[in-house]
């Protein structure tokens, strides 16, 4: 299939899906109230937009991490990056400290800092094994995730804001506002553009770090720059919508199967498909058990965990 054809099909699908999602929900909106209904325009629309942006952020950071770590199982959630970001964000939310740095507000800033810490620890742990096997990285991710989750639970208990933080933690777009959309927008746009224009280096890295070097790539600089970028994108998504996993795993995997691993196609297609997946998952989250709402993180884990096992098995053969 041609890349352009696939982009058109996916984009059309996203539009139809978003429009449908706007009109599906617990509260029925009469056709004559469509243009004025606050439920549609101040509750559902920002929610859809936010899910879409989180989809771009998480899918793209998955592509980047898989590329630079040369590991098809790398995903911000599985590597513990999301959990690390969660610790930072929870600290920010519960302590109400106010810091700003380079235009970032407290919550995303702390999320970024702790996510970066998690990445560094995972990377160093995975280096302990002499064989650079994909499983070592995953094991390191499991360990860091478990530790971060424990710290997160502690923060929640100590802060006494069990309900609010816990609900956010499970991953949800339910409290979305246009403010959140504006917060995520620059991360999504800038992150997507940077990774797209570095697809040359990401492609060269597919040949291995050494060959990439002899192709003129400053491997260490690019690798760490890209890891920091992916971490930043994940942290931004987590600080607004909590822990939503597996987007960065499922989406790039399918696009690779369809279009091959060339990053110039992979990055935009994965971003587009990431938005579709999360808008779909969020629509399911708020309608399947209506009027009750399931956190979207739970929906993604229900789909994603079996998928992870499938990829692991496929990799073994």
């Amino acid at each position: 299939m041609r890349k352009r054809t696939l982009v058109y099909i996916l984009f059309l699908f996203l539009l139809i899906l978003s429009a449908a999602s706007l009109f599906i929900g617990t509260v029925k909106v009469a056709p004559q109230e469509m243009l004025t209904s606050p439920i549609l325009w101040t509750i559902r629309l920002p929610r859809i937009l936010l899910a879409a942006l989180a989809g771009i952020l998480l899918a793209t950071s998955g592509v980047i991490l898989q590329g630079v770590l040369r590991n098809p199982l790398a995903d911000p959630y599985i590597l513990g990056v999301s959990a690390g970001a969660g610790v930072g964000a929870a600290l920010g939310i519960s302590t109400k400290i106010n810091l700003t740095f380079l235009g970032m507000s407290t919550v995303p800033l702390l999320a970024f800092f702790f996510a970066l810490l998690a990445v560094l620890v995972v990377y160093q742990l995975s280096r302990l094994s002499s064989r650079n096997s994909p499983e070592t990285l995953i094991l390191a991710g499991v360990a860091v995730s478990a530790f971060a989750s424990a710290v997160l639970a502690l923060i929640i208990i100590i802060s006494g804001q069990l309900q609010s933080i816990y609900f956010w933690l499970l991953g949800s777009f339910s409290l979305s506002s246009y403010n959140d959309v504006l917060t995520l927008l620059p991360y999504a746009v800038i992150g997507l553009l940077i990774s797209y224009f570095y697809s040359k280096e990401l492609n060269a890295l597919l040949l291995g770090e050494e060959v990439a070097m002899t192709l003129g790539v400053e491997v260490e600089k690019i690798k760490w720059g890209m890891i920091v970028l992916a971490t930043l994108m994940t942290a931004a998504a987590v600080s607004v919508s909590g822990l939503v996993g597996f987007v960065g795993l499922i989406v790039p995997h399918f696009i690779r199967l369809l279009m091959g691993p060339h990053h110039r196609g992979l990055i935009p297609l994965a971003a587009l498909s990431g938005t579709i997946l999360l808008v779909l998952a969020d629509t399911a989250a708020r309608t399947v058990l209506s009027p009750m709402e399931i956190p979207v993180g739970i929906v993604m884990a229900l789909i994603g965990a079996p998928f992870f096992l499938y990829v692991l098995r496929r990799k073994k053969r």
Partner: protein
Amino acid sequence: MTALSVFNLICGYEGKEVLRGISFEIEVGEFVGIVGPNGCGKTTLLRTISGLLPVWQGCIKVEEQDIHKTERAELAKTIAFVPQLMEPIEGFTVADMVLLGRTPHLNRFSFESEEDRQVARWAREELRIEKLSKTLVNELSGGEFQRVVIARALAQEPRLMLLDEPTSHLDIRYQVRILKLLRKLRQTRTIVATFHDLNMAARFCQKLLLLKAGEIVAFGRPDEVLTAENIWKAYRIKAEVKRNPKTRHARLVLLP
């Protein structure tokens, strides 16, 4: 004209000195084989010339350009390196993989031009893999994949090609094929490769560089280098050097 000059080179990796006082010069258009026993520093030499390992002392010049003082992106337009083992990338076609060789010639904000595609096609034709263009690299045989890997390096349009044991895991038919292709390529560029099979190297290279424990034992035409005395020095093996009656190439025969 001198393509590669190595002067008084000392180098190694992770604090372990591997090569000591290596000096030699290679002319443009030569196909040079680096030979010697396991652990003598063949690969280290190749990797240092390619810029993957640092030069501790001495200097390496590729066409008067000191590789030590050259940016990696610039170096990649002059030197291409083919490692001993490469894993095929799942989902890449032969055409995709060869096109990656154009990486050092691309700008940040523009992608492969028609010219880049033509160079890549030329590289595929040179290696006789044009027909495989749309095949996935993970479905190729070892000999086919090795030609793809070399075409990828050729698409870089390097003036110097470095290959680490390009024939080591191929059957004899593919060994000869790869060596013939390399011999043909050297008409337009300089080629340096490491080999284990001395007879094959003698048959196809213009010059051999024989190493032993990080030092040069001999450097010159194959019949000058492959003498019973040098073989004993490098490998501690008794051998008689005969000549192929048809081609007059030096040929080793082991003595009991």
